[in-house]
């Protein structure tokens, strides 16, 4: 048996090599031929190793793949140099259907969407991994059906952003990054959003705790009032703030006389507008966090000798920390993206959103595009970083302040 196997292997390798040396050397130059020979031998070798136990059917599927690749790449697309590369990849991922999916996406995007193959490869691979993850989840088929129903929405949200990401050449992006006005707008955005988050944190958390623990008449109404900034169009918020804090108003006048600063059209105004529209996110998130804590835990803490203040810092705050963190991220990102009220109250200094709009109205889409892309990349990077930090055990321990 063993002898016959070995003989068969020798015959297979020998004949492939012979075909390459004798027949194909006439059709292509010797370098291409050598590369193809190596790919074929690799392919054969893998096939023989894997099909040792299961013969016949699998072996013929494996060979069919070879044929399809050959037809698609060499005959249809005429890319004979890509063929050996993909053949090696094919042989390598043959045993993993999941990886094979990525390979198929790769081949199709190269063949069908040649100019956009990078963005389509990334976009489709992303959707494919989502589908794999969802399909791999054990559970009821009904849930899968529901997911399939919602899938178009998912696509609609993700596609434009992903598509936008690949619209500008890296050189353009690098050039934009060097622009002074872009840099100052970016700095203004990050700085004001961070200050806004800190202010919301400092005032929002105590308010959230009080509202979560107290019962009084009109509490529901007060809660609804606090969500007004989320519900009203932001230009209206801007007008309200301008009427309150603008140059000719008592408060605006007071700031100008005593501190020598104007609220409208300054960093102060940017922060004021951002706090107004984005602090409710932190407040509501923190309140939900506090409400979901069993009040019995706080009572137990008190009975063990901890003062209300200590109880707050050792029990309530650590347990609500994940919600508060989530609220901070929401507030921060909402502040970054704030536009409407800034247009009215503080169009200057530029934040990224007003800057992008300004560039767009003055120079058009092609100029605004790289700005938008860069900002998108920076935001995504920060969000991924935040998520990652939150999942770290050290961060968890810090949040829970052991």
């Amino acid at each position, binding site marked *: 048996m063993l002898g016959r196997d070995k003989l068969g292997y020798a015959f297979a390798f020998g004949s492939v090599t012979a075909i390459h040396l004798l027949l194909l050397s006439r059709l292509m130059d010797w370098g291409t031929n050598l590369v193809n020979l190596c790919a074929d031998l690799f392919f054969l070798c893998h096939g023989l190793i894997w099909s040792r136990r299961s013969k016949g059917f699998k072996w013929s599927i494996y060979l069919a793949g070879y044929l399809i690749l050959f037809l698609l790449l060499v005959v249809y697309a005429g890319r004979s140099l890509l063929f050996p590369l993909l053949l090696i990849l094919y042989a390598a991922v043959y045993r993993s259907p999941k990886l094979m999916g990525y390979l198929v996406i790769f081949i199709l995007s190269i063949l069908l969407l040649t100019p956009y193959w990078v963005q389509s490869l990334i976009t489709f691979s992303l959707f494919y991994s989502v589908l794999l993850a969802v399909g791999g989840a054990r559970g009821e088929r009904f849930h899968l059906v529901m997911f399939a129903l919602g899938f178009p929405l998912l696509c609609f949200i993700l596609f434009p952003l992903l598509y936008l990401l690949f619209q500008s050449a890296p050189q353009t992006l690098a050039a934009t990054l060097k622009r002074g006005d872009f840099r100052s707008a970016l700095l203004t955005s990050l700085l004001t959003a961070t200050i806004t988050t800190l202010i919301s944190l400092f005032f929002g958390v105590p308010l959230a705790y009080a509202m979560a623990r107290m019962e009084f008449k009109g509490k529901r109404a007060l809660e609804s009032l606090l969500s007004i900034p989320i519900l009203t169009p932001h230009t209206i918020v801007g007008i309200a703030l301008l009427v309150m804090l603008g140059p000719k108003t008592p408060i605006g006048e007071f700031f100008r006389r005593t501190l020598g600063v104007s609220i409208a059209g300054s960093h102060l105004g940017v922060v004021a507008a951002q706090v107004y529209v984005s602090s409710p996110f932190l407040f509501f998130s923190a309140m939900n966090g506090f409400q979901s804590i069993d009040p019995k*835990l706080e009572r137990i*803490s008190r*009975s063990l000798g901890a003062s209300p203040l200590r109880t707050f810092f050792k029990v309530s705050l650590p347990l609500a920390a994940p919600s508060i963190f989530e609220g901070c991220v929401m507030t921060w990102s909402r502040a970054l993206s704030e536009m409407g009220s800034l247009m009215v109250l503080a169009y200057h200094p530029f934040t990224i959103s007003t800057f992008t709009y300004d560039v767009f109205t003055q120079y058009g889409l092609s100029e605004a595009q790289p700005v938008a892309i860069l900002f998108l990349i920076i935001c995504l990077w920060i969000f991924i970083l935040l998520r990652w930090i939150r999942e770290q055990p050290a961060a968890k321990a810090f949040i829970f302040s052991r």
Partner: protein
Amino acid sequence: MIELKGVRRRWGGFSLKGITLRVERGEYFVLLGPCGAGKTLLLETIAGFWRPDEGEIWINGRDVTHIPPERRNVGFVYQEYGLFPHLSVKENISYGLRARGYSRKERERRVREVVEMLGIEELLDRGEVGSLSGGEKQKVALARALAVKPDVLLLDEPLHSLDYSSRERAYAMLKEVNRGLNLTVIHVTHDYSEARALAGRIGVMNNGQLVQVDRPEEVFDRPKTAFAARFLGVENLFKGKIKRNEGGLLVMKVGGLEVKALGGGEVDPGGICIRPEEVRVSREPLSLGNDFEGVVREISDRGAFIRVSVDVGDVRFISHLPRRDFLRSHLSVGERVYLGFSPESACVLIDDEEEMDEPA
């Protein structure tokens, strides 16, 4: 020692209606009552989580009515144990010691001490509180409460989510804690077998009021009100009227029957109750003081005993017969039998609006 003097407090529609109670040092006191009776609220008021609207609370001779919970020195264990989910077992147990500012060394020593007493040394190395079983959580919660050496221990249905066998062990542990530390304990439960197993004294609570406070034997054998009787598993509750006094025994008219009962005498009784275990059913005539003839209507096997309903005229008695007696007597439905119980086991009740059988 805990003293409550006329404690009243309203919560929306519910209220504690003037609770007066004295629990001695080292006593194991069980508050027994149905859900919604106000047991937990009373316990939380003692711990200081709520201020009473009226009345005073004294702990060990100190008026604590207006003192916040952190300065009352009470240990509290909730039904769901209330372990801090973000802290480890060890951090949970030493939480109170930390809050009271003990040094690291002292904390270690006290934790070791309480953990050894409850026999849960091996739990200290378990980090996550969430991975503990119900019984383990309960012990950790108890250890946490005991670590600060409280003056009184307040337990709110601490054995509620334990299975039968761990419950038996928990009884022994709680008794040991109570006796070993000479610690005053108030234990809230709605399970009367638990109350009976643990209590030095029992307070029966209903609708924000203490209905009866007595030694367990008294509460079980001589419930004062129809509510207490029904709650404690007495199935024979009848409305009745006093007919006459006969040599120290009250003769009550229940439906068409005359029942002799041991009279309390102080209040006008509105009814009578007989524990079903005390009612005997037999084919031979009995002479127990109250003897009747009736017809067996229903027989149902309850495992530990057999529940037999017997109609005597228009009055239906329930009897719990020990399994062996029942098997020996070969009773069957529809049969005429003798039924009897002693006057001592018939207990007169104050009529408290609780529904009682009213034989025509």
